[in-house]
């Protein structure tokens, strides 16, 4: 059993099986957003890892190849992006406006809610960069006095929440333009939001990938400054 877990076989197998199962289930439920296969796979695998007594480190190193593929998949967002370039030029101003508004809202509302609801300073500062992609968020968290490992979990949770509820909220507010939907998802919930909205259309996926990259940049510039301005450090 231990010998098997030192190979990629069990980690890859249980992860792909969970994703297949919950993807199938979501299909049976007419694609209901709350049946999000990523969220339920995580829940199921947490239970699996706890019940079988395998440590998280063992599971993660066994499933590491899937985690690695996040890299090339992120680079691959360049292809839909290149297809949308003509439209991108026209939309430069609206995208910039949306990016700035969304980034400020993500940061300030997280800090405000953390404070008001009584989270301590370390938790609040770890919440602040939650909307940007994991490596950037962890770097920022470290810089402003948060806990990077805590931030990593908040980032994923943000992605799951956004992927589940974001498209519903956008439809409810009649934001139907793929450029708007994509940008909003990229700003609010980074790569998981991008992966989710790419399932809707590659056009929305392109804008989401772009917005994800730019908001990582913007938040790493904004956030340390805002934290000092608000006297949190």
């Amino acid at each position, binding site marked *: 059993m231990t010998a098997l877990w030192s190979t990629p076989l069990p980690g890859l197998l249980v992860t792909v099986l969970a994703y297949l199962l919950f993807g199938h289930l979501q299909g049976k439920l007419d694609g209901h957003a709350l049946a999000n296969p990523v969220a339920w796979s995580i829940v199921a695998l947490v239970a699996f890892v706890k019940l079988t007594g395998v440590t998280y480190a063992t599971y*993660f190193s066994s499933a590491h190849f899937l985690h690695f593929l996040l*890299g090339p998949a992120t680079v691959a967002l360049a292809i839909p*992006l290149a297809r949308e370039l003509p439209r991108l030029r026209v*939309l430069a101003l609206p995208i910039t406006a*949306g990016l700035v508004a969304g980034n400020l809202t993500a940061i300030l509302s997280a800090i405000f809610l953390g404070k008001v609801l009584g989270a301590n300073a370390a938790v609040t500062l770890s919440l602040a960069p939650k909307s940007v992609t994991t490596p950037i968020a962890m770097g920022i968290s470290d810089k402003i006095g948060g806990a990077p490992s805590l931030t990593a979990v908040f980032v994923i949770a943000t992605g799951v929440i956004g992927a589940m509820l974001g498209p519903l*909220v956008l439809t409810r507010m009649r934001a139907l333009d793929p450029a708007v939907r994509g940008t909003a998802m990229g700003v609010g919930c980074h790569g998981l939001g991008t992966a989710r909205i790419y399932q809707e259309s590659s056009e929305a996926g392109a804008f989401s990938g772009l917005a994800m990259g730019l908001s990582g940049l913007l938040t790493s510039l904004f956030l340390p400054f805002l934290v000092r301005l608000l006297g949190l450090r």
Partner: protein
Amino acid sequence: MFAGIAILLACQAVGQWLAAALHIAVPGPVLGMALLAAVLAVARRIPAGLAQVADGLLKAMPLFFIPAGVGVLVLSDTLRDAWLPITVALLVSTLLAIMATALVMRMALRMVARRSKDAQ
């Protein structure tokens, strides 16, 4: 198809090298994406093999987030202590950010459309 895989990996490698060399916080793959998009824009064409690999990877992308997501279980103690503020802040703040982006971008789109109509 293999050329497509090689191109994606090469762009990621260059991105990672750039991020390290320039001491910037942006992840290598995000820089690789920007680099590849710039090259494709200049070349004005997308090789079929590359498009095929990219499409396959992007369709499967949600799956790649799962191993990192299972990491929640490591932090169960902190999460137990402050679960309420954390849950509310994550839920509300994420949805607010999505709504604010969409609202402001839509307003700016309308402004731009109105201005170009006036100019005609």
